[in-house]
């Protein structure tokens, strides 16, 4: 019985227990504890931990083993699962049950997701990778489809995309086996770079496209935002935090470990000018910019965050494709950072929904006086998402920017900065429309979310802040993951990166930042510290006398001026493309149906059978 056996068994047991005990009120706490137990097992692992069960396919051994790269993702998965299970442990779960939903189905789906992800992360060959991939896809569907009619529609759209992606991955797997004669990742890493460029091109395209679907890589990104946003509360937080990162995991595995960056350099479009790495970097850049600016337009807090999830995935891929020590460390670290702040943001949005019943940014406002802890969570989260110090999002984005500059990619750098600009604009919209401005009279009597919900939110905030101040805590795992992938390893310190060309020490930055606050506080409190709370209606509106029934500071059509400028740039080209594709498939299906209906079915069957037999015989 190895540690990985124990881990997978415990994960399986968590699923079973969550399903059996899901109706019991303590199920959420139990599930969170079980996930914590899995995390402890993960922490006890060292090097590569193999699982005992294996089986044979085509004379190849199919096995599972968790290396530091997989462990890094598993750690984030389990952390996100703990936060989500904790969030639904109390009042949220009771309300969910009262509303007629099945809490045990939600608990069960979450546990199955975790198990599927652990299996995927522990894969050692293309078959176990494909098994894990399919399990993750369908487990994700289970979680997404629980949120009602809109959720089911979004989940079905997701499954359509996911199946397309899985077919590409399956095709890639078959071709890789046919051309190299092995399924084992270690052997593939030796044999794949030696393939002729045409075949390698096809494999890279199939794998990147297939896995990119899950990641929401352009142009396969349209399914993600609705599917995640419509999932039930903590499910959204879990999916948004880690689910689509499985795509990144698989892409990193294929590109960095199997094909290797040198192998990728052999694939040129314009020799010496533009290669597959540049292509991927530009895809990542567009994945950053376009979904981020789509997020800017959203009026539903959940959709806004979900679109950002796609955009932030672009940063991760960008860092990995740049491929130097700093860039790939930034990309990998961004997975962790994004999971922490994205989960915190989603949970705070769901805390608001729990109290007010809406996530419509035009129907909220002023909640800071009623839900200060949720406000704090969102504030910490958006600072992380926008990539500003002292939160952890800053560190990973700094690493990515830095590598783009040192590797001489100024245009990609500009694209990333434009993405960050869109992020800052839209997170301001998020926090302003939810928590700032005028408190609506219908929200006058609401109160802060219960501790079962604010607990995980504040815990995530603490992680976001601590790993932003001392990024070395995470960079240790990142460096191990880089080593396992065969990438250059980042030399890190507790405060960040030590580099002769100019490093980063967050301990200093945070120290100076809070020193500045300290000076301000010293001046204020040294001067007497007199302050006075004024009522929200004792406010300036061109001299008007304000009353609670007059709306004087609210938001509707936020960024109207900006949208006047950039609005015509939104062309919905991808939506158009998707619907054109759907129409084409519809038409083909109709044509097939016509042929089948008008000709004798038996005749067609006979033709097919003859053709099949001929193929077998010949």
């Amino acid at each position, binding site marked *: 019985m190895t540690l990985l056996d124990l881990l997978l068994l415990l994960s399986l047991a968590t699923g079973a227990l969550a399903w059996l005990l899901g109706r019991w009120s303590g199920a959420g706490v139990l599930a969170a504890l079980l996930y914590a137990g899995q995390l402890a097992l993960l922490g006890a692992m060292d090097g590569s931990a193999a699982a005992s069960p294996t089986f044979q396919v085509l004379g190849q051994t199919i096995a599972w083993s968790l290396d530091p790269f997989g462990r890094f993702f598993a750690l984030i998965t389990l952390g996100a699962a703990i936060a989500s299970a904790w969030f639904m442990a109390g009042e949220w779960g009771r309300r969910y049950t009262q509303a007629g939903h099945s809490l045990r189905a939600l608990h069960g789906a979450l546990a199955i997701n975790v198990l599927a992800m652990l299996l995927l992360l522990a894969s050692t060959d293309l078959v176990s990778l494909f098994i894990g991939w399919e399990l993750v896809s369908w487990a994700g569907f289970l979680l997404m489809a629980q949120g009602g009619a809109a959720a089911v529609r979004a989940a079905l759209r997701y499954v359509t995309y996911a199946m397309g992606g899985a077919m590409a991955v399956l095709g890639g797997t078959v071709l890789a086996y046919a051309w190299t004669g092995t399924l084992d990742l270690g052997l593939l890493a030796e044999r794949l770079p030696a393939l002729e460029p045409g075949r390698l091109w096809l494999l890279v395209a199939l794998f990147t496209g297939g896995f990119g679907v899950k990641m929401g890589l352009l142009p396969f990104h349209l399914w993600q935002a609705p599917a995640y946003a419509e999932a039930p509360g903590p499910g959204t937080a879990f999916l948004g935090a880690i689910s689509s990162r499985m795509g990144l995991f698989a892409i990193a595995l294929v590109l960095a470990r199997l094909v290797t960056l040198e192998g990728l350099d052999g694939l040129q479009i314009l020799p010496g000018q533009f290669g597959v790495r540049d292509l991927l970097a530009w895809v990542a850049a567009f994945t950053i910019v376009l979904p981020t600016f789509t997020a800017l337009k959203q009026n539903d807090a959940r959709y806004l965050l979900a679109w950002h999830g796609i955009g932030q995935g672009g940063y991760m891929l960008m860092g990995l494709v740049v491929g130097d020590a700093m860039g790939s460390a930034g990309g990998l670290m961004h997975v962790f950072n994004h999971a922490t702040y994205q989960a915190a943001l989603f949970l705070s949005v769901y805390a608001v929904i729990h109290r007010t019943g809406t996530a419509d940014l035009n129907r909220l406002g002023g909640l800071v006086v009623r839900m200060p802890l949720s406000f704090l969570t969102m504030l910490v989260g958006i600072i992380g998402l926008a990539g500003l110090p002292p939160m952890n999002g800053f560190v990973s984005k700094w690493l990515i920017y830095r590598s783009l500059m040192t590797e001489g990619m100024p245009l990609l750098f500009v694209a990333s900065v434009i993405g960050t600009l869109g992020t800052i604009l839209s997170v301001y919209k998020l926090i302003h429309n939810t928590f700032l401005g005028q408190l609506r009279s219908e929200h006058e009597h609401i109160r802060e979310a219960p501790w079962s919900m604010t607990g995980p939110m504040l815990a995530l905030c603490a992680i976001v802040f601590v790993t932003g101040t001392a990024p070395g805590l995470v960079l240790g795992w990142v460096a191990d993951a880089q080593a396992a992938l065969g990438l250059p390893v980042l030399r890190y310190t507790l405060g960040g990166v030590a580099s002769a060309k100019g490093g980063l020490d967050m301990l200093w930055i945070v120290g100076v930042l809070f020193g500045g606050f300290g000076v301000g506080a010293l001046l204020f409190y040294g001067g007497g510290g007199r302050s006075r709370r004024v*009522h929200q209606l004792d406010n300036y509106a061109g001299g008007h006398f304000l009353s609670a029934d007059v709306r004087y500071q609210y938001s509707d059509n936020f960024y109207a001026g900006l949208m006047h400028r950039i609005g015509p740039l939104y062309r919905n080209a991808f939506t158009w493309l998707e619907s054109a594709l759907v129409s084409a498939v519809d038409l083909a299906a109709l044509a097939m149906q016509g042929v089948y209906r008008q000709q004798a079915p038996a005749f067609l069957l006979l033709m097919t059978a003859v053709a099949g037999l001929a193929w077998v015989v010949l």
Partner: protein
Amino acid sequence: MSDLKQIPIHAEGDAGGDPKSEGLFTRVFDELKAFCRSRSLFMLHYCTGCGAIELPPAMTSRFDMERLGIQPMVTPRQADILLVTGYVSIKTLKRIILTYEQMGGPKYVIGICSCTVNGGMYWQSYATAKVLNEYLPVDLYIAGCMPRPEAVITGMRQLMENIRTGKADNWKDYYRRYDHYLGNQQQLFGERWQTPTDVIGEADHYGLAGPETTGPHTALLQQHQVPLQPLEMRLGSRQERKP
């Protein structure tokens, strides 16, 4: 309204200025503070009448008020100067008083144009508040119909000088003799007149409450005043409040 006429309004208050600060260091520090204060003024221009037309040239490149350290501010909470630029109708005066009370001390009021001095060409009007300093403590008038930007700048420089030498402290008078100002306001607006600001509480806050801060008019105010409910921060552990 009938008994409102019978409540006397004290025209003159006690001339209790600040005692001079003791000690060389304190005096130097106070003077430095007053100098700095006079050189960085945020101005809320409550443009009530035609005098406002002379402000853009005063503020923009030709006369450039900003070289004196004066620039416009959009909210009263951060502003130092309230600029009233022309005739003040009774309806407008309510807004001006509301805005003035929202400003944090020290604060200064400048009345521009003859209309704020004595009603100007509106002296016969039934709907115009003619003498601004009956309702607000005006620090400086810039007379004229309308005053040129040069006059505006000169007035501003005079106010800066007054601030530097410590003469411009009429804002304290509003707290010390609140009953007087409130009485005049009530004469004009009626006995139900109220603003959201708790001026008496602020007078205590600044340590400026004197014998004439409260009086028969503030007593009348307190009879009618509907205070705003406090908007406090509440955490989840507290019970939900009944509406």
